[in-house]
């Protein structure tokens, strides 16, 4: 495996990884919002 390939794989892996973390946080927020709106209906 060339070092060039290694280098750019690392770059993309880390950036993609961070974006996935952001995505997961976003999904959790959306879940909580939905739950809040359900609670709001019940009141």
């Amino acid at each position, binding site marked *: 495996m*060339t*070092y*060039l390939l*290694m*280098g*750019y794989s*690392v*770059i993309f892996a*880390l*950036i993609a990884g*961070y974006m996935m973390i*952001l995505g997961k*946080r*976003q999904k959790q*927020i*959306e879940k*909580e*919002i939905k739950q*809040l*709106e359900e*609670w*709001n209906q019940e*009141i």
Partner: protein
Amino acid sequence: MMIKINNSGPIDRVLFYILVPAFLINLYLIFVWSPVEKVMGDVQKIFYFHVGSAWVAFLAFCVVGFYSVLTLIKPKMERFIYAGISAEIGVLFTTLALLTGMIWGRASWNTWWTWEPRLITTLILWFIYVAYLFVRKMEGSWEKIAKLSSVFGIIGVINVPIVFMATRWWNTKLHPVVFGEGKDQTGGGMEPEMLATMFFSIFTITVLYVFLLRKGAQIEKMREVIKKAKTNIINKIAS
């Protein structure tokens, strides 16, 4: 009570529309347009992202310092959030800078690590970032944590230039700098296409940084809104 899920505004859309093409153009510039370096060959192209990452790593830390000072002047949740997100992204890009730097080093000088001032400073920066994030994870009210972490952020920012000076001094005592051997000195200078590509890479990665910063901050702000809404609802239910 409708909570807006996506509070990203027109700025973010513009950023996104700049970012994606810039990224693609950047890749083209790096892999197709810029000339292949004669001594190192293809591997030299890691350099473009390496410099960009290192630049953003230090920029992000300056932003942390900036918001830390603001927080001490007047603690506001928004400033606290921005400092934290910038630190997270900073760790990301510092790690990237270190790893690409090591891969570059391995490719050019056959060693994974060299005690060179910029590498050492970046490594210490990494540790200061991590320490900063640990301070933020402390228990307590957000105002207290905001104050403590801001103080540490400021001390950290002051420290980084001194680290660089000290390590550079140290290096010249141990290994006198040989011109033409440095990281970005491919035998004396860079061809103009390489320079242009390098600047474009720095630009692209900076846009990426701003984009991630805003996105991350929006998510944290949403979290605060949700927390408040939750306590509101719980109070309503309780009464």
